[in-house]
Structure formats: structure tokens, C-alpha cells
């Protein structure tokens, strides 16, 4: 236990960065060229027409045109009903409908599905995932996450964390994650995977990962993909394979508590599955996948049921088409 705490402390010191800690984009691009690395950016999307254009323009101009840090910028869309795909295409992104990638594998709905299919569709040795709803997008979101992978070969998975602009108290910065992180994920990690408590924001949706890692891990299609990644990569490669980077602030949509409830439910299911998989818990009863929430009108209280099954895509290496393309 002492050893684990020590390790975690060292990791926090050595593998936690601020985006300003790194060399310039030009120097990173040069180092990447020397190593012969290729890097793909994947933006999973669903109805993001208001923010996606800006994100593509800023990242393409700075990291593909001005500097050659990215080799590929793709939007993997879950079937937006607005003009997300048209906007993305008009600003020069490669745009794919998730349902049209690996059609033999069928179609599932969820961000995790897009992330998983990106491993097959995109070519990079490193894949960087950025959400499409970042209002204050800046190239640092990309180069900050890529820098540890370019500069330290032993790092395999880099996760973002942010300042959360809530209440400040003296010189102490409010840190840590959002509500689901602090109420659900951090307590669970503290109990079962204490090393993972070193992540300031384990649920952040921005990360850069080496292909050799991505192809070996499974992907929950809906909620829980971030949690499962942390647990699986920890088991496969250890804490040393991770780094985390402070990207200052991230401005995005705030989620309603009711929606966070669904997210927490999905994460919990994923988590329990992982406990079972790693023989950390004895038999669990059949739990089903229905979340029940209340909707009240006046004195009438109605229970609403949400079916939130946790379906997982297998490690990409198990998919024949992928092995044919990459191996």
C-alpha cells in the first residue's frame, strides 16, 4: 500500500504537465518527423454544427498547414441531423459516417462506437481524440496532449485535465473533476484502483493514445469508455504508461443533473464489469440495465425508465478486417 502511494506520488510529479511545459509546435513537429510518427486527429460528432467549423479551422491551420504536427483530421459522425457533416467538410476535414465504417460489424450508437471505428479508419500511429463541442478551442488542446507521446517513448496514453472555473479560495485552485467524477468515479477508484485516483479528471473526453494501445483494449459504446480505458490500460501497461496535461480552461455545455445520472449509471455498469473481469469481486447478481428517474408535475410523480445497456466493442485486434489493413 505504501509502495503504491509512493508510486502514485512520483507519477503525479513526473507525469503531470501543463501545456506550456513543452517546446514550440514547430519543434514538436520536427521531433515527430524525425521519429517517423504519423498522427491522426479524430473528432467524434453528433449535431455540433455551431462549434465544429471553428475547431477544424483552428486545428488544421495551426497543426496541419502552418506546422506539420497532424497528418490527418477526421470527423466521425454518429448520424447528425443538422449540418455538422457539411460544415466539417467545407472546412477541409475528412468526414465519415460511423455507420459506413466496418459495415460488417454493424452499427451501434454512442461516442465510444465512433472512437473505436476511428482506429480502423484512421492511419496514424497516434490517435488524438477531441470532442466537437469545445467552445474555447485552441491548438494547445492538441499539441498539449501529443507532446508527452512525442517526447517520451514510454508514455502511451495522455489525458487532459482542466481548471474548473468555479469558486476560488485564496491561492488554492479548485481542482478535480465534475460531479460524476467526485461523487462516483473517485470513490470507486479509491476503493479498487487507488493508483487511478492520481488523475485529476479521469472522465475528460480529450486524450491522445498510441495505436498499439488502442487496438488492444475494448470500447464501451456509450458511457464508460473513459473509465474502462483507464482500468484496462493500467492493467496492461501500468501507471507509468499514462501522463496527464493541464489545458487550462475548457468551456462547453453544462449537463443537467438528470443526464449526469444516466452517465453515472453507465459508468457504474462498466466499472462492475471490469471488477468481474479482473477477478476483483465475487459473483454479482443479474442487474439489468434500467435506470429509473422521477418526473414530477404538481403532486403527481411519475417514474421514467431509461434503458442504458452497456455494450462493448472488442479490442480492434480481434477484428479480421483491421488485422488485414494494419498487420
Amino acid at each position: 500500500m505504501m509502495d503504491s502511494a509512493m508510486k502514485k506520488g512520483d507519477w503525479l510529479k513526473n507525469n503531470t504537465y501543463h501545456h506550456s511545459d513543452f517546446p514550440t509546435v514547430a519543434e514538436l513537429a520536427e521531433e515527430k518527423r524525425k521519429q517517423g510518427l504519423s498522427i491522426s486527429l479524430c473528432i467524434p460528432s453528433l449535431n455540433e454544427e455551431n462549434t465544429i467549423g471553428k475547431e477544424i479551422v483552428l486545428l488544421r491551420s495551426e497543426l496541419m498547414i502552418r506546422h506539420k504536427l497532424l497528418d490527418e483530421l477526421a470527423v466521425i459522425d454518429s448520424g447528425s441531423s443538422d449540418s455538422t457533416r457539411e460544415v466539417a467538410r467545407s472546412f477541409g476535414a475528412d468526414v465519415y459516417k460511423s455507420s459506413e465504417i466496418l459495415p460488417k460489424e454493424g452499427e451501434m450508437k454512442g461516442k465510444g462506437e465512433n472512437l473505436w471505428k476511428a482506429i480502423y479508419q484512421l492511419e496514424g500511429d497516434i490517435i488524438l481524440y477531441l470532442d466537437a463541442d469545445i467552445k474555447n478551442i485552441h491548438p494547445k488542446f492538441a499539441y498539449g496532449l501529443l507532446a508527452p507521446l512525442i517526447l517520451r517513448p514510454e508514455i502511451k496514453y495522455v489525458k487532459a485535465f482542466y481548471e474548473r472555473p468555479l469558486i476560488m479560495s485564496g491561492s488554492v485552485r479548485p481542482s478535480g473533476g465534475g460531479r460524476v467524477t467526485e461523487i462516483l468515479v473517485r470513490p470507486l477508484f479509491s476503493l479498487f484502483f487507488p493508483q487511478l485516483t492520481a488523475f485529476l479528471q479521469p472522465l475528460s473526453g480529450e486524450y491522445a493514445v498510441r495505436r498499439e494501445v488502442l487496438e488492444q483494449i475494448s470500447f464501451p459504446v456509450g458511457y464508460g469508455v473513459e473509465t474502462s480505458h483507464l482500468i484496462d490500460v493500467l492493467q496492461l501497461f501500468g501507471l507509468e504508461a499514462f501522463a496527464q496535461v493541464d489545458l487550462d480552461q475548457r468551456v462547453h455545455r453544462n449537463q443537467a443533473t438528470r443526464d449526469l445520472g444516466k452517465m453515472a449509471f453507465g459508468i457504474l455498469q462498466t466499472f462492475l464489469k471490469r471488477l468481474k473481469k479482473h477477478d476483483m469481486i465475487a459473483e454479482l447478481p443479474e442487474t439489468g440495465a434500467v435506470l429509473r428517474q422521477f418526473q414530477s408535475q404538481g403532486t403527481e410523480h411519475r417514474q421514467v425508465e431509461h434503458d442504458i445497456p452497456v455494450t462493448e466493442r472488442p479490442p480492434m485486434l480481434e477484428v479480421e478486417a483491421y488485422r488485414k489493413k494494419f498487420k
Partner: protein
Amino acid sequence: MVPELEDITDVLQEYRSSAETVKEILLSNLVTFGEVPAPTFGERRRVEEVQHVFIDSGLQNCSIDDLDNGMAILPGAQGERNLLLIAHADTMFSEKVDHTISLQPDRAVGPGVADNSLGLAVLATLPQLLEAANIRIKDNLILLTPTRGLDKGNLEGLRFFLKHNRLPISAGICVEGAQLGRLSFSCIGMLRGEIVCSVPEEYDWTKFGATNAIVSLNEVINRILEVSLPTRPRTKIVLGRIEGGTSVNSVPTEARLQFEIRSESARIIESVSREIDAIITETASHSGAQIHWAVFARRRPTGIPFSHPLVRATTRIMESLNVTPRIAPSTSELSTVLGHHIPAVTVGITRVERLNRADEAALIEPVFTGLAQLLAILKAIDDGLCHEKR
């Protein structure tokens, strides 16, 4: 071979195509600058963002002066003369306004996106634009992003720069995002002032009648509206902004009016301002209210003639691009540049909808025509086609 304007107008479509190749860089600069608030007197952060891009592009003399003006020099092949390109850094939107910019396939939308984030983005993209168009400029280009231009700024930034600048400047171009077709080469005279009416907070019988600052200000306004203005030289009074009172059921103790006198004649401006001064003194004397006024910005009428080679070249370039020149006098940076006897024009870059509203929209497609126009004017000046024969 003596260069001719036809050499330039013949390749305008090539300039336009070259401009399309820098679309991403231009839009990226536009978003980067435009999302940083830059109200007049609070432009520093935006100017720093522009400086980062200037430095990144390898420009020389990148610096910010005491009044937060940003500048950089793109050295010319010969560097015998210096051309000044100006895009004002300030906007009329306060820090509190959400400055998020949204990019759609045909437009960029957000506060100040055209006025003048686009002007700044054009200056910052100029090195790439010239390279794409394969234009090697002989003269040095001084890229300037002056502050304190709008509102009560009174063009302080640009005045400061020109006062301390030691580089001889042969011509200037003021770049505004709005509107494509705009052509200014003269400036009308202008005086901006603020009238403040105040009454005692406690009702005071010795100041009988001085019970309401708004009523007193209203009287001043009515009298200003009676001032007789000549049709020639053209003269106008704009009552631009008014504020007063705190709530519906409180007697207002202070009211303010900001106004502008515009005229083609400096003499008329002086005479109208004397009339306003008399109105204020008279109203104060019989209403019992304290009424003060102060001038916070002033421009003298100035300009270059329509026949000036710079104006004629600019007009021909616009017409060759099927852009109809809309000639309008300016009261902005141009007046200060012309006041320093530097021949200069102001041009716009694109078509803009809902100008100066929070949802201002700069159309993307016309930008490339606006950029081709700018390249052509620069090239014409650089080739010596815009200088007056002495």
C-alpha cells in the same frame, strides 16, 4: 520595363485564387483574435495575440508600445520606402459580451467579427498571402494595430505612433473588415462631446426648477435641434447616446448626452460648437441645473483628391474586380494618417450583415475578392503607380 496598372488588373483573378489558399489561416487568425475582448482602452490582450502571430511568421520589429499599439515590419526586397497598413485593434463590445465566434461554411458570426477582427486577421495573414500570390514587395510594410481608436479613444494610439515614429512613410492603407467596396480618401471634420446635466440629490428650494436632470437635458436637446445647419458645406449633428436616471420612481440627478458634429468645414464645426456652448450656458442659468460639456474627440477635415493616383488606382482595381466603389468620407484612422500628409485610403474586405451587433456576420466568399483588392493596391503602390508626380 515601366510597370503599368494593367499588369496588375490583368492578374486579379490569380490574386483571388491565391487568397483562397490561405482561407484556413485567415479564419484561424480571425477566430483567435476575435474571441479576445478588446474594448477601447482594453485592447492589450488582443494585441498580444496578434503579436504572437506576427512573431511566428518571422516578422521583424514585433513590439507593443506604451499605448498598447502593436506593430511589426515585413521587410521589403529593397526597403527604400515604407508602406503603412493599419487595422484598428479595438471594438465597441465590452469584456462582458460573449465573444465566441461561430464559423459556418459561408460566414463567421460574432461580436466585432468584421469590425475589426477581420482587419487584424488580414494583416496577420499578409505574409502567407503575399507568398501564395508570389508577390515580392520592394518596400517595407509596417503592420500596425493601433488602440484607442473608437468612442472616447480619439485615435490616441495612432496619434501616439505617428508622433514617435521615425520611419518615413510613403503611403498608407487602412484595412476594415466592412464593407467590401468601401473607399475613403477624405475625412470630414468631426467634434465629439458629452453634455452632463446634474441636479442636487436633495430637493433644494433655492434651486427652484432644478428638479430633474433628464428634463434639463431634454431642454438642451430641443435647443440643439433648433440649431440651423448649412447644406453646403455638408454638416450634421448626431445625438448618439443618452443615459440618465436610475429607476422609474426616482428623480434623476444626472443625465448625459454624447453627440457628434460632422462637417466638411472646420469653421462650421467651431461655430456650431460655440452655439452649443451658448445653449448650455443659457439652459443652466434658467433651469438651475449644473450643466457641463466637454469635447472628447476632434478631427479636422482633410483628404486627398479623387484625382490622386492612389485613389484612381484603387478605383480601377475595384472596378476590375466588379466591386462598385462606395465613396464615403471617414472619421477614423484615415484622418490621422492624412493629417500627417501621408496619402492613404481606407478599404473594406468583405460584405457584412448586422454590422456592430453581437451577431455581426462576415461573409467568407467575398473576403477573397477583398484580399485580391488589397494585394493589388499594395502592388500598385510598390510599383510606384500611386505616387503623385512632382
